[in-house]
């Protein structure tokens, strides 16, 4: 086990290095640079000065090595476009915002999704089933942007139940300002509802046809007890596989939702940084998100073995 974990950690470091290098050179390969637009408006004589000021006049390899060296020391550098913004500032200020939004969306979305999934599976081929399937298709196919604007128009505009934009900050960051979070949470939870309702339904229908369910029925157990004890528990494995992915993705933010509701999260900033070719910020965010993803995958893999001894780890013996 220890050997496996060490090997995985080395692999993770290597993956991060490759991701950082690839990101750096991909951004370099795109024509232009973060200063193009600004420089284009300046007289020729001031342009060289601008590039010199941001160190962009130096050769690519030199900048790559400097950047990598700085990153190893935890310094991702400063934004080219927004003076003073750094990746560490981003982690401190923006990540918690996206995290709360993501967690709320996921908790609500996954719970409602699972309930609907159970409902659809236990009422297979009934109008309830069709309604759940129809709803899932609708929820997954309509973009966030449309839902967000629609909810905003109705609940903030016409009914005035909730504020149109905004997000709790300061002491309210984690637990206060609920009224601000309702519409964004609803907007984002729809895709979770759709995903988990369909996932659990399919998985439950598979389990329902298993021999042990038949046995349980023949033993005369009640329908509720069969669902609870035998079907649900066994059909949760695909859900357990999906869930860590959702956790990893949920805190990385959503560009559209954050943009519509003016939420100071990480998602909106990431997209803007890519558009601006804001190298240090893109690099920092990419590496951090990759790290988050890799760590979650790693934990999931380890947990599999802990939860289900039948699953073996490569390079180790489960016998």
């Amino acid at each position, binding site marked *: 086990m220890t050997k496996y974990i060490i090997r995985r950690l080395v692999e993770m470091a290597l993956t991060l290095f490759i991701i950082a290098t690839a990101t750096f050179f991909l951004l370099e390969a795109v024509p*232009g640079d973060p200063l193009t637009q600004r420089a284009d408006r300046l007289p020729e004589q001031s342009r060289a*000065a601008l590039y010199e000021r941001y160190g962009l006049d130096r050769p690519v390899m030199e900048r790559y090595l400097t950047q990598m060296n700085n990153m190893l020391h935890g310094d991702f550098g400063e934004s080219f476009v927004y003076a*003073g*913004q750094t990746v560490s500032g981003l982690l401190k200020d923006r990540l918690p915002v996206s995290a709360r939004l993501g967690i709320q969306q996921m908790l609500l979305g996954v719970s409602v999704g699972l309930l609907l999934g159970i409902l659809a599976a236990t009422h297979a081929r009934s109008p309830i089933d069709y309604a759940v399937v129809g709803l899932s298709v609708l929820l997954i196919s309509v973009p966030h942007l449309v839902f967000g604007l629609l909810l905003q*128009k109705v609940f903030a505009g016409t009914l005035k139940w909730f504020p149109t934009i905004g997000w709790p900050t300061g002491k309210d960051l984690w637990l206060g300002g609920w009224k601000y979070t309702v519409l964004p949470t609803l907007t984002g939870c729809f895709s979770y509802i759709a995903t988990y309702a369909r996932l659990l339904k399919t998985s439950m229908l598979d389990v329902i046809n298993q021999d042990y369910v038949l046995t349980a029925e023949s033993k005369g157990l009640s329908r509720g007890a069969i669902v609870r004890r035998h079907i649900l528990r066994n059909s949760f494995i695909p859900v357990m596989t999906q869930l860590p992915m959702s956790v990893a993705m949920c805190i990385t933010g959503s560009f559209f939702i954050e943009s519509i509701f003016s939420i100071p999260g990480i998602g909106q900033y990431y997209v803007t940084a890519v*558009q601006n070719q804001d190298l240090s910020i893109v690099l920092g965010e990419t590496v951090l998100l990759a790290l988050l993803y890799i760590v979650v995958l790693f934990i999931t893999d380890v947990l599999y073995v802990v939860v289900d001894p039948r699953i073996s780890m490569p390079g180790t013996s489960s016998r």
Partner: protein
Amino acid sequence: MKLKRRSVLGMMGAACLSAILAGCGGSDDSSSAAVSSAAQSGTDTQVLNIRTTAFGNNYDVQDMGWRWMMAACYSGLYRNVADDTGEHFVLDGAESVDVSDDGTVYTFHLQPNAKWSDGQPVTAHDYEYGWKRLVNPKYLYDYASFIFNVVGAEEYYNGTGTADGVMAVAVDDYTFQVTLKIADPTFEAKLVATPLYPTREDLAETAGDQWGKDWTLCVYNGPFCMSELVEDNKMVWTKNTNYWNADETHLETVNWYLVGEDSTAATMFDNGELDVLQTSGDYSRKYQSEAEAGQVQMITADYPGTVCLAFDHKNGGKSGLMGNLKIRKALSYSINREEMIDAVYGRYEPAYGFISPAITFDGKSYRSQVEEPMLADYNKYAGDYDALKSLFQEGLSELGMSTDLSSVTVTYLSYGSTVEESSFREYLQQTWQQNLGIQVELNTVGDYSLFTAERDAGNFDLFSAGWYSDYNDPLDYLNTFYTGLYVSVSGGYSNSEYDALIDSLAGENDNAKRLSIYTQCEQILFDDCATIPLYYSTKEYFLQNWVKDFRWSSFGASQEFYITYIEGRGF
């Protein structure tokens, strides 16, 4: 020394007017109580909510970057404002100014009661530090060249001089003196720009490389102070009671909300969550009709920007045709500006010249003094597409090419994917194909970086270009066509006669002569058909009916609230 003393009447007049117009209400600040009259009965809070689409993060006045928003928190020697009478500047940090007979020495007498938000007086030393910081080679500010005409400034910037050699000096605490190399009538127009605002040496030096980046380290000497910032969400300004003219400032709070979507902003404006709105496209049309019905107020003002199509003057374009004057004219005159503006934008003004009507000269709009140079020639061909086709064919003959128009392909390079940008491309393609019978290839790229790459690679005949002026003088526009200076605007245009005329302006103090040279320069551009002007930019603000005395500006802060007040909102 001849005294040229300006009074603060302009500003005081505007402020008094606002007081007469029933002042501000609901304020709990005693300083504004004296102005109030009708407001006594109201329950209006003096809070203004306004939308923006970006915050910036640049609070270094010398850096100019975010001046359009932040300039309203600062105060320089002059403040540029616009109202129904157009753009003009008023004295702000300076109480009066003396100019020497030869126009090279400016002595500014500062407001003795001007203070920073931390209570320290605003002194001539703060101006001296700000100006010297601007040309300090350590910082390489983009706008350093704004004051290269100050004795010693360019030398200091280039490393051949010293800070002490820069003749922008504090004579005493409240007298700031600037010596120019040669007289420059555009100098005063530049004083409204934030790079020439004062900066506190003690704070800036302590902050080091965090200066301008960390807003909590800033102090303000304008009507408002920034008091809260939530990135991508909200910025709050509160009234700066230390501003020298704070008695006339009625708003207690200005809330800036970052709202990316026009649809969201419209919902908020309809709800009364926003008091001032800038929008575009269909929403603009919607509020235009609401304004006509009196439900909201609308302000439309000229903005010093001209949107053009630039030719490839360097290589004659991908088609090799752009070097021909007749072909350039046929392309330009075949665009019906009025129809295009109506079909694509629903606002703006058609352009038949290069210099925007927002630019003033000698106190009047330049455009009201000089007729648009393209208009006469354009009108000769107006709508006569057969004549324009013949003109195009004549051009082809001159180049020794086949006169079969259908075999001609012209490439238009542009970027962006907004509805307006896409509509314009399609409009242009259709217009040239229909009116001239030529083929139009659209080289459309995703963003500005890709655009410059394609442009530098020469994959175009024409590209989308334009100029938004930095200071209020026609020269800022005309400089862009000076050989080699702004290829991104001129497309590489070069004309020695034009350059010589621009050069002859140096040290020219006679306004009549300057006007004559400006007129000649602009005429040369259109005799040569150096560019295709499309439209003059305008600003469009929608305001709730309860917003009073809102001001705007093209060269300082885009929105000015220093005399704005709320009346009749009821909350």
